[in-house]
Protein backbone atom coordinates (compact mmCIF):
# COMPACT_ATOMS: atom_id res chain seq x y z
CA UNK A 1 0.00 0.00 0.00
CA UNK A 2 1.02 3.53 -0.58
CA UNK A 3 2.33 5.45 2.36
CA UNK A 4 0.96 8.70 1.01
CA UNK A 5 -1.51 10.11 3.52
CA UNK A 6 -0.64 13.73 3.06
CA UNK A 7 -3.19 16.19 4.34
CA UNK A 8 -5.19 18.12 1.82
CA UNK A 9 -4.00 21.66 1.15
CA UNK A 10 -5.90 24.92 1.49
CA UNK A 11 -9.54 24.83 0.32
CA UNK A 12 -10.08 25.80 -3.31
CA UNK A 13 -12.74 28.23 -4.47
CA UNK A 14 -14.84 25.24 -5.53
CA UNK A 15 -14.47 23.70 -2.05
CA UNK A 16 -15.53 26.97 -0.48
CA UNK A 17 -18.56 27.39 -2.73
CA UNK A 18 -19.80 24.02 -1.47
CA UNK A 19 -19.93 25.56 2.01
CA UNK A 20 -22.50 28.15 0.99
CA UNK A 21 -25.54 26.23 2.37
CA UNK A 22 -23.64 25.47 5.59
CA UNK A 23 -22.69 29.12 5.99
CA UNK A 24 -26.33 30.10 5.58
CA UNK A 25 -27.34 27.48 8.14
CA UNK A 26 -24.75 28.79 10.57
CA UNK A 27 -25.84 32.37 10.02
CA UNK A 28 -29.45 31.45 10.83
CA UNK A 29 -28.30 29.57 13.93
CA UNK A 30 -26.38 32.60 15.19
CA UNK A 31 -29.31 34.92 14.50
CA UNK A 32 -31.70 32.57 16.35
CA UNK A 33 -29.29 32.40 19.29
CA UNK A 34 -29.13 36.18 19.59
CA UNK A 35 -32.89 36.38 19.26
CA UNK A 36 -33.39 33.85 22.08
CA UNK A 37 -31.20 35.73 24.53
CA UNK A 38 -32.36 39.21 23.58
CA UNK A 39 -36.00 38.17 24.11
CA UNK A 40 -35.07 36.96 27.58
CA UNK A 41 -33.50 40.27 28.53
CA UNK A 42 -29.87 39.23 28.13
CA UNK A 43 -27.26 41.77 27.15
CA UNK A 44 -24.84 40.74 24.41
CA UNK A 45 -21.27 41.59 25.42
CA UNK A 46 -17.82 41.40 23.85
CA UNK A 47 -14.77 40.84 26.01
CA UNK A 48 -11.08 40.84 24.98
CA UNK A 49 -9.64 38.09 22.81
CA UNK A 50 -6.07 38.90 23.83
CA UNK A 51 -5.60 38.55 27.57
CA UNK A 52 -2.58 38.74 29.91
CA UNK A 53 -3.96 36.13 32.34
CA UNK A 54 -5.92 33.22 30.83
CA UNK A 55 -7.89 31.21 33.40
CA UNK A 56 -5.75 28.55 35.04
CA UNK A 57 -7.08 25.10 34.29
CA UNK A 58 -5.05 21.97 34.55
CA UNK A 59 -5.58 20.71 31.01
CA UNK A 60 -6.26 23.83 28.95
CA UNK A 61 -3.30 25.51 27.24
CA UNK A 62 -3.41 29.06 25.91
CA UNK A 63 -1.78 30.22 22.69
CA UNK A 64 0.85 32.90 23.39
CA UNK A 65 0.60 36.03 21.27
CA UNK A 66 2.77 39.13 21.53
CA UNK A 67 3.59 38.84 25.24
CA UNK A 68 -0.01 37.91 26.13
CA UNK A 69 -2.35 35.03 25.23
CA UNK A 70 -5.41 34.36 23.15
CA UNK A 71 -8.34 33.71 25.47
CA UNK A 72 -9.28 30.11 26.15
CA UNK A 73 -12.68 31.25 27.43
CA UNK A 74 -14.38 34.60 28.13
CA UNK A 75 -15.31 33.44 31.65
CA UNK A 76 -13.21 35.71 33.87
CA UNK A 77 -14.10 38.92 32.04
CA UNK A 78 -17.79 38.01 31.92
CA UNK A 79 -17.80 37.39 35.67
CA UNK A 80 -16.24 40.81 36.19
CA UNK A 81 -19.22 42.26 34.32
CA UNK A 82 -21.59 40.25 36.51
CA UNK A 83 -19.86 41.59 39.62
CA UNK A 84 -20.26 45.09 38.17
CA UNK A 85 -24.02 44.72 38.01
CA UNK A 86 -24.75 43.18 34.59
CA UNK A 87 -27.17 40.50 35.70
CA UNK A 88 -27.82 38.62 32.43
CA UNK A 89 -25.13 38.54 29.78
CA UNK A 90 -24.20 36.41 26.81
CA UNK A 91 -21.36 36.35 24.33
CA UNK A 92 -20.71 34.60 21.03
CA UNK A 93 -17.12 34.59 19.93
CA UNK A 94 -13.94 32.69 19.25
CA UNK A 95 -11.86 30.93 21.87
CA UNK A 96 -8.45 29.40 21.33
CA UNK A 97 -6.98 26.28 22.88
CA UNK A 98 -3.51 25.25 21.96
CA UNK A 99 -3.02 21.64 20.91
CA UNK A 100 -6.70 20.75 20.54
CA UNK A 101 -7.16 19.39 17.06
CA UNK A 102 -9.22 16.41 15.97
CA UNK A 103 -12.49 15.47 14.31
CA UNK A 104 -14.49 17.39 16.96
CA UNK A 105 -11.78 19.83 18.07
CA UNK A 106 -10.31 22.87 16.36
CA UNK A 107 -7.73 25.06 18.13
CA UNK A 108 -9.93 28.07 17.28
CA UNK A 109 -13.64 27.54 17.86
CA UNK A 110 -16.83 29.49 18.42
CA UNK A 111 -18.11 29.59 21.97
CA UNK A 112 -21.52 30.66 23.20
CA UNK A 113 -21.29 31.59 26.84
CA UNK A 114 -23.99 33.04 29.07
CA UNK A 115 -24.34 33.95 32.74
CA UNK A 116 -27.19 34.91 34.95
CA UNK A 117 -27.34 36.06 38.55
CA UNK A 118 -29.72 34.54 41.11
CA UNK A 119 -29.55 31.14 39.39
CA UNK A 120 -27.88 27.80 39.94
CA UNK A 121 -26.72 25.05 37.60
CA UNK A 122 -30.19 23.46 37.51
CA UNK A 123 -31.81 26.72 36.43
CA UNK A 124 -29.38 27.10 33.54
CA UNK A 125 -29.90 23.46 32.55
CA UNK A 126 -33.61 24.23 32.13
CA UNK A 127 -32.67 27.33 30.18
CA UNK A 128 -30.30 25.32 27.96
CA UNK A 129 -33.19 23.00 27.14
CA UNK A 130 -35.34 25.99 26.16
CA UNK A 131 -32.48 27.40 24.08
CA UNK A 132 -31.78 24.20 22.14
CA UNK A 133 -35.48 23.61 21.51
CA UNK A 134 -35.90 27.18 20.26
CA UNK A 135 -32.83 26.88 18.01
CA UNK A 136 -33.89 23.55 16.51
CA UNK A 137 -37.40 24.89 15.87
CA UNK A 138 -35.95 28.01 14.30
CA UNK A 139 -33.34 26.47 11.98
CA UNK A 140 -34.91 23.06 11.31
CA UNK A 141 -38.58 23.70 11.94
CA UNK A 142 -38.77 20.71 14.32
CA UNK A 143 -37.57 19.61 17.73
CA UNK A 144 -35.49 16.64 16.61
CA UNK A 145 -32.40 15.98 14.53
CA UNK A 146 -30.53 12.97 13.19
CA UNK A 147 -26.83 12.82 13.84
CA UNK A 148 -24.16 10.19 14.34
CA UNK A 149 -26.63 7.46 13.47
CA UNK A 150 -29.06 8.61 16.10
CA UNK A 151 -32.32 10.55 16.27
CA UNK A 152 -32.36 12.94 19.21
CA UNK A 153 -35.60 14.66 20.18
CA UNK A 154 -34.86 17.75 22.23
CA UNK A 155 -38.51 17.93 23.28
CA UNK A 156 -38.22 14.52 24.93
CA UNK A 157 -36.95 13.84 28.44
CA UNK A 158 -33.57 15.27 29.31
CA UNK A 159 -31.84 12.71 31.44
CA UNK A 160 -30.03 13.97 34.50
CA UNK A 161 -27.40 11.50 35.51
CA UNK A 162 -25.10 12.05 38.47
CA UNK A 163 -21.44 11.13 38.18
CA UNK A 164 -22.00 8.72 41.08
CA UNK A 165 -24.71 6.77 39.26
CA UNK A 166 -22.96 6.96 35.87
CA UNK A 167 -19.82 5.42 37.38
CA UNK A 168 -21.72 2.54 38.99
CA UNK A 169 -20.96 0.56 35.81
CA UNK A 170 -17.24 1.09 36.50
CA UNK A 171 -17.66 -0.19 40.06
CA UNK A 172 -16.58 2.88 42.03
CA UNK A 173 -17.70 6.34 43.03
CA UNK A 174 -15.27 9.10 42.05
CA UNK A 175 -17.18 11.56 44.21
CA UNK A 176 -16.33 9.64 47.39
CA UNK A 177 -12.77 8.61 46.59
CA UNK A 178 -11.22 10.46 43.68
CA UNK A 179 -8.53 9.18 41.34
CA UNK A 180 -7.88 11.48 38.37
CA UNK A 181 -6.31 8.98 36.03
CA UNK A 182 -8.89 6.30 36.74
CA UNK A 183 -11.69 8.84 36.34
CA UNK A 184 -10.50 9.85 32.88
CA UNK A 185 -9.95 6.29 31.75
CA UNK A 186 -13.33 5.03 32.96
CA UNK A 187 -15.18 8.11 31.70
CA UNK A 188 -13.80 7.48 28.23
CA UNK A 189 -13.96 3.71 28.10
CA UNK A 190 -16.94 2.79 30.26
CA UNK A 191 -19.18 5.74 31.04
CA UNK A 192 -19.37 7.76 27.82
CA UNK A 193 -20.02 4.72 25.59
CA UNK A 194 -22.97 3.77 27.84
CA UNK A 195 -24.62 7.18 27.91
CA UNK A 196 -28.02 7.17 26.19
CA UNK A 197 -27.69 8.69 22.72
CA UNK A 198 -31.32 9.14 21.83
CA UNK A 199 -31.86 12.03 24.23
CA UNK A 200 -30.00 14.87 25.86
CA UNK A 201 -28.00 13.70 28.87
CA UNK A 202 -26.61 15.97 31.58
CA UNK A 203 -23.84 14.32 33.53
CA UNK A 204 -23.83 16.22 36.81
CA UNK A 205 -22.49 16.61 40.35
CA UNK A 206 -18.78 16.17 39.71
CA UNK A 207 -16.05 15.33 42.18
CA UNK A 208 -14.89 18.51 43.94
CA UNK A 209 -11.43 17.92 42.45
CA UNK A 210 -12.98 18.57 39.01
CA UNK A 211 -14.84 21.72 39.99
CA UNK A 212 -12.61 24.19 38.10
CA UNK A 213 -14.61 27.40 38.65
CA UNK A 214 -17.73 25.73 40.06
CA UNK A 215 -19.25 26.13 43.52
CA UNK A 216 -19.29 23.02 45.68
CA UNK A 217 -22.25 21.75 47.66
CA UNK A 218 -21.77 20.47 51.20
CA UNK A 219 -21.88 16.71 51.55
CA UNK A 220 -21.72 14.08 52.47
CA UNK A 221 -20.19 13.58 50.01
CA UNK A 222 -19.56 17.14 48.77
CA UNK A 223 -19.95 17.60 45.02
CA UNK A 224 -19.20 20.31 42.48
CA UNK A 225 -22.35 21.89 41.06
CA UNK A 226 -21.33 21.28 37.50
CA UNK A 227 -22.89 19.54 34.52
CA UNK A 228 -21.71 18.49 31.09
CA UNK A 229 -24.31 18.11 28.37
CA UNK A 230 -24.08 15.25 25.87
CA UNK A 231 -26.12 15.08 22.68
CA UNK A 232 -25.88 11.97 20.51
CA UNK A 233 -22.84 11.05 22.62
CA UNK A 234 -21.05 14.32 21.82
CA UNK A 235 -20.03 16.65 24.64
CA UNK A 236 -21.65 19.98 23.86
CA UNK A 237 -21.73 22.25 26.92
CA UNK A 238 -20.34 22.70 30.39
CA UNK A 239 -22.05 24.61 33.21
CA UNK A 240 -21.46 25.59 36.80
CA UNK A 241 -23.11 27.18 39.72
CA UNK A 242 -20.28 29.69 39.80
CA UNK A 243 -17.78 29.85 42.60
CA UNK A 244 -18.10 33.28 44.21
CA UNK A 245 -15.74 32.84 47.16
CA UNK A 246 -12.50 34.79 46.49
CA UNK A 247 -10.44 32.85 49.02
CA UNK A 248 -11.43 29.46 47.63
CA UNK A 249 -10.96 30.74 44.06
CA UNK A 250 -7.43 31.92 44.79
CA UNK A 251 -6.63 28.61 46.48
CA UNK A 252 -7.84 26.70 43.40
CA UNK A 253 -5.81 28.85 41.00
CA UNK A 254 -2.73 28.32 43.15
CA UNK A 255 -3.27 24.56 43.33
CA UNK A 256 -3.72 24.49 39.57
CA UNK A 257 -0.57 26.56 39.04
CA UNK A 258 1.39 24.04 41.15
CA UNK A 259 -0.03 21.10 39.18
CA UNK A 260 0.77 22.74 35.87
CA UNK A 261 4.30 23.52 36.99
CA UNK A 262 4.74 19.88 38.06
CA UNK A 263 3.44 18.74 34.65
CA UNK A 264 5.96 20.99 32.89
CA UNK A 265 3.16 23.13 31.44
CA UNK A 266 3.23 26.92 31.20
CA UNK A 267 1.81 28.66 34.27
CA UNK A 268 -0.17 31.84 33.62
CA UNK A 269 -0.17 34.77 36.04
CA UNK A 270 -3.06 35.06 38.50
CA UNK A 271 -5.87 37.29 37.26
CA UNK A 272 -5.80 39.75 40.15
CA UNK A 273 -8.51 41.96 38.64
CA UNK A 274 -10.84 38.99 38.57
CA UNK A 275 -10.00 38.04 42.18
CA UNK A 276 -10.55 41.68 43.22
CA UNK A 277 -13.99 41.58 41.61
CA UNK A 278 -14.84 38.47 43.63
CA UNK A 279 -13.68 40.26 46.77
CA UNK A 280 -15.97 43.19 46.03
CA UNK A 281 -18.74 40.63 45.66
CA UNK A 282 -19.99 38.39 42.85
CA UNK A 283 -23.68 37.61 43.34
CA UNK A 284 -24.89 34.02 43.27
CA UNK A 285 -24.86 33.08 39.59
CA UNK A 286 -24.60 30.29 37.08
CA UNK A 287 -23.25 30.07 33.57
CA UNK A 288 -23.00 27.81 30.55
CA UNK A 289 -20.31 27.45 27.88
CA UNK A 290 -21.54 25.78 24.71
CA UNK A 291 -19.54 24.91 21.60
CA UNK A 292 -21.45 26.47 18.71
CA UNK A 293 -19.47 24.69 15.99
CA UNK A 294 -20.40 21.37 17.58
CA UNK A 295 -24.04 22.40 17.89
CA UNK A 296 -23.98 23.28 14.21
CA UNK A 297 -22.53 19.84 13.47
CA UNK A 298 -25.29 18.13 15.43
CA UNK A 299 -28.16 20.09 13.92
CA UNK A 300 -26.73 19.70 10.42
CA UNK A 301 -26.22 15.97 10.90
CA UNK A 302 -22.49 16.37 10.21
CA UNK A 303 -20.00 13.81 11.48
CA UNK A 304 -17.08 16.12 12.10
CA UNK A 305 -15.99 19.74 12.09
CA UNK A 306 -14.59 19.45 8.56
CA UNK A 307 -18.16 19.51 7.32
CA UNK A 308 -19.06 22.76 9.08
CA UNK A 309 -15.84 24.81 9.10
CA UNK A 310 -14.68 26.02 5.67
CA UNK A 311 -11.31 27.05 7.06
CA UNK A 312 -9.98 24.33 9.29
CA UNK A 313 -6.76 24.71 11.22
CA UNK A 314 -3.99 22.69 9.57
CA UNK A 315 -3.04 21.01 12.83
CA UNK A 316 -2.91 21.44 16.57
CA UNK A 317 -1.00 24.71 16.50
CA UNK A 318 -2.21 26.63 13.43
Amino acid at each position, binding site marked *: *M*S*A*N*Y*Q*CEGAPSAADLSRFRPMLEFRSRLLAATRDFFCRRGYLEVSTPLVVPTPAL*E*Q*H*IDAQPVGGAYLRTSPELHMKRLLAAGCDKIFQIGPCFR*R*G*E*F*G*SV*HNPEFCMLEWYRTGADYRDVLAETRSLLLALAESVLGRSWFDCRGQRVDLAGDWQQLTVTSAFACAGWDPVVCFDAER*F*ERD*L*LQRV*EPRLPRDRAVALMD*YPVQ*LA*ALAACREGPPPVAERW*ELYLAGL*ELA*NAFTELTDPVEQRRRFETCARERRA*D*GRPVYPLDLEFLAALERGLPRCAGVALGLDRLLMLLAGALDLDAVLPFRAA*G*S*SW
Partner: protein
Amino acid sequence: MYSASDLRKGLRIEIDGVPYIITEFNFVKPGKGASIYNCKLKNLINGSTLNKSYRSNDKFDEPRIEDRKMRYSYNDGTNYVFIDDNYEQLEITPGVLGNSRFFLNEDMPVDVLIFNGQAIGVDLPTFVEKAIIETEPGARGNTATNVLKPATIEGGYEIHVPLFINQGDIVKIDTRTGEYSDRARVARNA
Protein backbone atom coordinates in the same frame (compact mmCIF):
# COMPACT_ATOMS: atom_id res chain seq x y z
CA MET B 1 11.63 15.20 18.26
CA TYR B 2 7.86 15.41 18.08
CA SER B 3 5.49 16.03 20.96
CA ALA B 4 2.00 14.56 21.20
CA SER B 5 0.40 17.73 19.83
CA ASP B 6 2.33 17.24 16.57
CA LEU B 7 0.62 13.90 15.96
CA ARG B 8 -1.70 13.80 12.96
CA LYS B 9 -2.65 11.54 10.12
CA GLY B 10 0.27 11.02 7.76
CA LEU B 11 3.02 11.81 10.28
CA ARG B 12 5.90 9.33 10.57
CA ILE B 13 7.25 8.49 14.00
CA GLU B 14 9.82 6.03 15.27
CA ILE B 15 9.04 3.53 18.03
CA ASP B 16 11.81 1.26 19.31
CA GLY B 17 13.86 1.94 16.20
CA VAL B 18 11.03 1.07 13.80
CA PRO B 19 9.45 3.69 11.53
CA TYR B 20 5.66 3.97 11.61
CA ILE B 21 3.15 6.14 9.81
CA ILE B 22 -0.07 7.34 11.47
CA THR B 23 -2.93 6.11 9.29
CA GLU B 24 -5.79 7.11 11.57
CA PHE B 25 -5.81 9.81 14.20
CA ASN B 26 -8.37 10.73 16.79
CA PHE B 27 -8.03 13.41 19.45
CA VAL B 28 -10.20 13.13 22.57
CA LYS B 29 -10.44 15.31 25.63
CA PRO B 30 -13.37 14.33 27.81
CA GLY B 31 -14.75 16.97 30.13
CA LYS B 32 -12.00 19.23 31.26
CA GLY B 33 -9.65 16.25 31.34
CA ALA B 34 -6.31 15.49 29.80
CA SER B 35 -5.80 15.25 26.05
CA ILE B 36 -5.60 11.75 24.64
CA TYR B 37 -4.23 11.08 21.20
CA ASN B 38 -5.44 7.79 19.71
CA CYS B 39 -3.41 6.61 16.74
CA LYS B 40 -3.56 3.73 14.35
CA LEU B 41 0.01 3.12 13.25
CA LYS B 42 1.37 1.20 10.32
CA ASN B 43 4.81 -0.33 10.55
CA LEU B 44 6.63 0.97 7.47
CA ILE B 45 8.93 -2.05 7.34
CA ASN B 46 6.49 -4.96 7.51
CA GLY B 47 3.11 -3.28 7.05
CA SER B 48 1.63 -4.54 10.33
CA THR B 49 -0.67 -2.16 12.22
CA LEU B 50 -1.21 -1.34 15.85
CA ASN B 51 -3.33 1.01 17.95
CA LYS B 52 -1.75 3.29 20.52
CA SER B 53 -2.97 6.01 22.86
CA TYR B 54 -0.67 8.83 23.81
CA ARG B 55 -0.75 11.66 26.35
CA SER B 56 0.41 15.28 26.16
CA ASN B 57 3.79 14.57 27.73
CA ASP B 58 4.75 11.79 25.30
CA LYS B 59 7.62 12.49 22.93
CA PHE B 60 8.51 10.80 19.67
CA ASP B 61 11.56 10.47 17.51
CA GLU B 62 11.32 11.41 13.89
CA PRO B 63 12.45 8.40 11.83
CA ARG B 64 15.40 9.25 9.60
CA ILE B 65 13.68 8.48 6.35
CA GLU B 66 15.04 9.90 3.16
CA ASP B 67 12.44 10.68 0.49
CA ARG B 68 14.36 10.08 -2.70
CA LYS B 69 12.80 11.59 -5.83
CA MET B 70 12.82 8.89 -8.53
CA ARG B 71 10.83 7.72 -11.52
CA TYR B 72 9.50 4.26 -12.15
CA SER B 73 11.35 2.73 -15.07
CA TYR B 74 10.50 -0.92 -15.70
CA ASN B 75 9.96 -4.35 -14.19
CA ASP B 76 12.87 -6.71 -14.80
CA GLY B 77 10.70 -9.79 -14.52
CA THR B 78 10.74 -9.84 -10.73
CA ASN B 79 11.86 -6.54 -9.28
CA TYR B 80 10.80 -2.99 -9.97
CA VAL B 81 13.47 -0.62 -11.21
CA PHE B 82 13.44 3.09 -10.32
CA ILE B 83 15.78 5.71 -11.69
CA ASP B 84 16.74 9.21 -10.51
CA ASP B 85 17.84 12.32 -12.41
CA ASN B 86 21.46 11.12 -12.33
CA TYR B 87 20.44 7.84 -13.96
CA GLU B 88 21.15 5.96 -10.77
CA GLN B 89 19.00 2.89 -10.56
CA LEU B 90 17.40 1.20 -7.60
CA GLU B 91 15.64 -2.16 -7.60
CA ILE B 92 12.78 -2.75 -5.23
CA THR B 93 11.20 -6.15 -4.59
CA PRO B 94 7.44 -6.72 -4.95
CA GLY B 95 7.29 -7.59 -1.24
CA VAL B 96 8.53 -4.13 -0.23
CA LEU B 97 6.20 -2.35 -2.65
CA GLY B 98 3.08 -4.24 -1.61
CA ASN B 99 -0.01 -3.06 -3.46
CA SER B 100 1.82 0.08 -4.60
CA ARG B 101 3.30 -2.03 -7.39
CA PHE B 102 -0.08 -2.26 -9.13
CA PHE B 103 -0.36 1.51 -9.40
CA LEU B 104 2.98 2.26 -11.08
CA ASN B 105 3.09 3.66 -14.58
CA GLU B 106 6.20 4.10 -16.66
CA ASP B 107 8.01 7.35 -15.89
CA MET B 108 5.77 8.05 -12.88
CA PRO B 109 7.48 10.31 -10.29
CA VAL B 110 7.53 8.71 -6.84
CA ASP B 111 9.27 9.26 -3.52
CA VAL B 112 11.28 6.18 -2.62
CA LEU B 113 11.46 5.93 1.18
CA ILE B 114 14.92 4.99 2.36
CA PHE B 115 15.45 3.94 5.99
CA ASN B 116 18.87 2.77 7.23
CA GLY B 117 20.05 2.55 3.61
CA GLN B 118 17.17 0.23 2.64
CA ALA B 119 14.20 1.07 0.42
CA ILE B 120 11.10 0.42 2.56
CA GLY B 121 8.39 1.62 0.19
CA VAL B 122 7.31 4.34 -2.21
CA ASP B 123 5.01 7.32 -1.93
CA LEU B 124 2.85 7.47 -5.04
CA PRO B 125 0.98 10.39 -6.54
CA THR B 126 -2.46 10.52 -4.87
CA PHE B 127 -4.24 9.66 -8.12
CA VAL B 128 -3.00 7.36 -10.85
CA GLU B 129 -4.59 6.36 -14.15
CA LYS B 130 -4.93 2.71 -15.08
CA ALA B 131 -6.58 0.82 -17.91
CA ILE B 132 -9.31 -1.68 -17.13
CA ILE B 133 -8.28 -4.96 -18.71
CA GLU B 134 -11.27 -7.00 -17.69
CA THR B 135 -14.80 -6.33 -16.47
CA GLU B 136 -18.36 -7.36 -17.30
CA PRO B 137 -19.74 -5.29 -20.21
CA GLY B 138 -21.00 -1.92 -19.06
CA ALA B 139 -24.63 -0.96 -18.87
CA ARG B 140 -24.81 1.83 -21.42
CA GLY B 141 -26.54 4.90 -20.10
CA ASN B 142 -26.36 3.69 -16.57
CA THR B 143 -24.67 6.60 -14.87
CA ALA B 144 -25.35 5.45 -11.32
CA THR B 145 -22.17 5.66 -9.32
CA ASN B 146 -23.40 3.82 -6.26
CA VAL B 147 -23.74 0.39 -7.86
CA LEU B 148 -20.35 -1.25 -8.33
CA LYS B 149 -18.96 -4.28 -10.13
CA PRO B 150 -15.52 -5.90 -10.01
CA ALA B 151 -12.90 -4.93 -12.58
CA THR B 152 -9.28 -5.87 -13.10
CA ILE B 153 -6.50 -3.42 -13.93
CA GLU B 154 -3.16 -4.20 -15.57
CA GLY B 155 -1.10 -6.36 -13.28
CA GLY B 156 -4.15 -8.23 -12.00
CA TYR B 157 -5.26 -5.91 -9.19
CA GLU B 158 -9.03 -5.93 -8.63
CA ILE B 159 -11.04 -2.81 -7.92
CA HIS B 160 -14.75 -2.00 -7.86
CA VAL B 161 -16.08 0.35 -10.50
CA PRO B 162 -19.48 1.79 -11.47
CA LEU B 163 -21.56 -0.15 -14.03
CA PHE B 164 -20.85 2.28 -16.89
CA ILE B 165 -17.12 1.46 -16.91
CA ASN B 166 -16.01 -0.77 -19.81
CA GLN B 167 -13.00 -2.85 -20.64
CA GLY B 168 -10.32 -0.52 -22.06
CA ASP B 169 -11.53 2.54 -20.16
CA ILE B 170 -8.93 4.45 -18.25
CA VAL B 171 -9.88 5.05 -14.63
CA LYS B 172 -8.42 7.16 -11.87
CA ILE B 173 -7.47 5.29 -8.71
CA ASP B 174 -6.92 6.89 -5.32
CA THR B 175 -3.65 5.34 -4.18
CA ARG B 176 -4.36 6.14 -0.52
CA THR B 177 -7.29 3.75 -0.50
CA GLY B 178 -6.56 1.66 -3.59
CA GLU B 179 -10.10 2.39 -4.74
CA TYR B 180 -11.75 3.69 -7.91
CA SER B 181 -12.11 7.44 -7.92
CA ASP B 182 -13.20 8.60 -11.34
CA ARG B 183 -13.31 7.75 -15.05
CA ALA B 184 -10.39 9.39 -16.86
CA ARG B 185 -11.06 8.38 -20.51
CA VAL B 186 -13.43 6.12 -22.40
CA ALA B 187 -11.94 3.19 -24.37
CA ARG B 188 -10.98 4.37 -27.87
CA ASN B 189 -12.86 1.61 -29.73
CA ALA B 190 -15.93 1.56 -27.48
